[in-house]
């Protein structure tokens, strides 16, 4: 199965780049959620006489990661998009908490600036929500990364180690195996593809993400680790 090594190495490079992109995306979302309460607190201190566009300008001028949401929204409105669509487009690509803030921002636009003080309360409430979600997310992140690491490295390595040691022992004891070791290696490769598929499906469903991202990370890496490790241990 060693002829697979070169194409697998080539496939693993985009897989690692995808993993990096996924990590960056998650980090950016987390930073937006973290700084959103500060931006909302600043908005809530504005006088009732300011216009909706001034509210957006104030939020944009703060230069926090969450300001990008308001900046995008302002840019869309300036290009002539209706406020509802501009808010929906700018706030819906991120986490549910961010999306719901967008919903409240639209209420502010519809009902006038008398709602501005709500944003102070919302800022406190968002912090509480974030804390509660962080507790769940911390466990979920551990589960996600341990599953990714198990699938891409640990499982293929353990299988390669025991398979290669057994193959070596079989040669030492001069056993004539009923089945060719190549057939077993082929079966293990198929198993690793199936395992990567299942793990990617599970992760995509659990974290509302793309199946193809996880599968393109785990599948080539697990095959590469298994074939490379068994080659290395055999030597």
């Amino acid at each position: 199965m060693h002829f697979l090594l070169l194409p697998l190495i080539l496939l693993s490079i985009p897989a690692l780049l995808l993993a990096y992109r996924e990590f960056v995306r998650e980090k950016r979302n987390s930073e937006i959620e973290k700084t959103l309460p500060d931006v909302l607190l600043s908005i809530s201190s504005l006088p009732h006489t300011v216009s909706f566009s001034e509210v957006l300008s104030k939020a944009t001028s703060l230069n926090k990661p969450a300001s990008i949401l308001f900046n995008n929204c302002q840019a869309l409105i300036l290009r002539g998009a209706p406020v509802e669509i501009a808010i929906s487009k700018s706030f819906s690509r991120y986490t549910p908490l961010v999306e719901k803030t967008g919903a409240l921002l639209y209420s502010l636009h519809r009902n006038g600036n008398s709602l501005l003080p709500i944003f102070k309360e919302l800022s406190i409430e968002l912090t509480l929500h974030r804390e509660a979600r962080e507790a769940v997310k911390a466990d979920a992140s551990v589960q996600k990364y341990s599953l990714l690491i198990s699938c891409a490295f640990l499982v293929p390595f353990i299988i390669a180690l025991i398979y290669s040691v057994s193959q070596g022992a079989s040669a030492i004891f001069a056993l004539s195996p009923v089945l060719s070791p190549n057939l077993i290696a082929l079966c293990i490769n198929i198993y690793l593809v199936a395992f990567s598929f299942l793990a990617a499906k599970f992760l995509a469903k659990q974290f509302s993400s793309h199946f193809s991202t996880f599968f393109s990370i785990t599948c080539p890496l697990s095959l590469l680790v298994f074939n490379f490790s068994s080659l290395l241990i055999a030597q």
Partner: protein
Amino acid sequence: MLNQLASVTPALFKSTDNHLLAQSLSAIGYACSPSAYLSLCFAVAVSSIIPLIFLTAALQLPVVFSLIAPVIFVFLLYFPIIEKDKLEKSMDVELPLLAYLARCDLLHSTPEKVVRSMHVGSFSRQRGDINQLLHNGLPLNLLDKAIRAPVKFKHTLRLVTSGDESGLKKLCRDLLEEQRNDAKRYAAKANIAGMFFISIAAVLPAFFSAIVLLGNLMGFSFTSFQVAFAFIVLFPFLDFAFLYYLGVASPVA
């Protein structure tokens, strides 16, 4: 597919009146009666016996393995209940925010307008039901009794229809506290689950490959079909079963 099959299966068990099953089927959107669903489970389990007998013969395993059929029956029977629990769990995650947003809306809107516009992700179906019931002329104060939804959602609805802002704020805080406690409870389970996962996904196939290679030494022998079946069907199935359990047990992120 299960939903489509269930909707065309004739009811063999006429007297079935399982309230929990009926509730679960309705919650996950299966348009069939409990007796029709029970008939489908029974039919699938019975029809799996013949292929199982052939499979055990091909794998040269004792015929007792064909008794997997009752396991299939029990799994299918509990499937709607498990799926309903999963659905309710994802709703519970969004409920604090829904309650809080409804409270904010109550500050500048009437309860009826708030009820009509309250929606967050998983509650889109309930929103449609609410609009339908109100359109049919149902009084606002009877809405929570008429709607088919989890108890917590009904409670939220009752607070919104009565315009109880402070009640909604308190509910929101209580639900958040509940989520924090759930996360703590799950953290303990997750460690054990991790250990089991490695043993199912890695150790089991690895040792099986060792037994196959060193089989002569230990007095075992396997056919190529048995080995292929183990790696291509059995081990992935065990992984699937474990990941399915993990999906049900873990809190929604």
